[in-house]
């Protein structure tokens, strides 16, 4: 299993992602954003951070990095792409995922553990989890308020493409459990082909017992299970 962690100027969760991917057995490379090819990987991770200082809009400049063209191409071939936090913002800006992430409802940068309800497991990113399971995972963002037009939301719901929503400790998706004002408590979505997943929370920061929660392992365990299976097939 080969994984690439893309580095943009301003990425700052690249080391965390690399560390966790290696723990899970991925042969993992860092790829600088000026690379023109992201071919040859089973998984491409766009890590969190503040690419290009969030100038203009979060992810707006990173999406035009040379490597992104190749990532769009790889995604169209079915390669798995995971965008975390700023990575999710870049995926939305690039059009690989629909919608946009705007300023948090209350204007603050929020850094805290939240509860996420697993909404769907028929995808490579949460296949080993269960629908309804509650994951404790940290968020750390100022622009995580997901927004999309009515037609897009309808499609996301109809096709079960909302993979995680903010919930309370008991798994109830309520307005009170919504940290940033995201439409319908949406924390993460996938594309129609189900091989591109973007989410604001940081599963890579919840993989080690020293870090309060290990619930983020669900994502990486699922990736290993998925890629292991496709390899055996």
């Amino acid at each position, binding site marked *: 299993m080969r994984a690439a962690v893309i580095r943009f100027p301003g990425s700052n969760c690249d080391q965390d992602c690399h560390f966790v991917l290696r723990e899970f057995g991925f042969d993992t490379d860092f790829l600088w954003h000026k690379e023109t090819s992201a071919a040859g990987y089973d998984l491409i991770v766009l890590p969190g951070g503040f690419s290009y200082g969030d100038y203009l809009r979060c992810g707006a400049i990173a999406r035009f990095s040379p490597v992104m063209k190749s990532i769009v191409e790889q995604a169209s071939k079915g390669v798995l792409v995971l965008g975390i936090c700023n990575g999710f913002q870049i995926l939305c800006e690039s059009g690989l995922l*629909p919608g946009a992430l*705007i300023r948090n409802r*209350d204007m603050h940068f929020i850094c805290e553990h939240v509860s996420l309800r697993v909404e769907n497991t028929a995808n490579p990113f949460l296949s080993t989890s269960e629908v309804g399971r509650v994951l404790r995972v940290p968020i750390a963002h100022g622009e995580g*308020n997901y927004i999309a037009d009515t037609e897009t939301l309808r499609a996301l719901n109809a096709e079960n493409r909302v993979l995680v929503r903010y919930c309370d400790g008991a798994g109830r998706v309520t307005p009170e459990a919504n940290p940033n*004002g995201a439409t319908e408590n949406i924390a993460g979505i996938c594309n129609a082909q189900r091989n591109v997943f973007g989410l604001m929370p940081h599963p890579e920061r919840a993989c080690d017992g020293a870090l309060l929660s290990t619930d983020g392992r669900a994502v990486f365990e699922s990736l290993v299970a998925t890629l292991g299976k496709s390899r055996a097939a």
Partner: protein
Amino acid sequence: MKAKVIVMPKLSILDPQGVAVREAMRHHGLPGVKSVRVGKMLEVEVDGADEAKLHEICRDLLSNPVVEDYELVLEK
């Protein structure tokens, strides 16, 4: 040529920054403030006048059509 690009959040989109500024203005003694929207303005100086290209860049880079509208004002 000089151009101004004004990027504003779409009317249908909640603008949390605008709401925060509206509240601050009310606290500053203007209770009648109904609405504030915060956008940004870019001043651009460019050789030549490829208006079509400028519009393309406004749409693809300077604004995000999902949540923002832009206005391009050319000052020749």
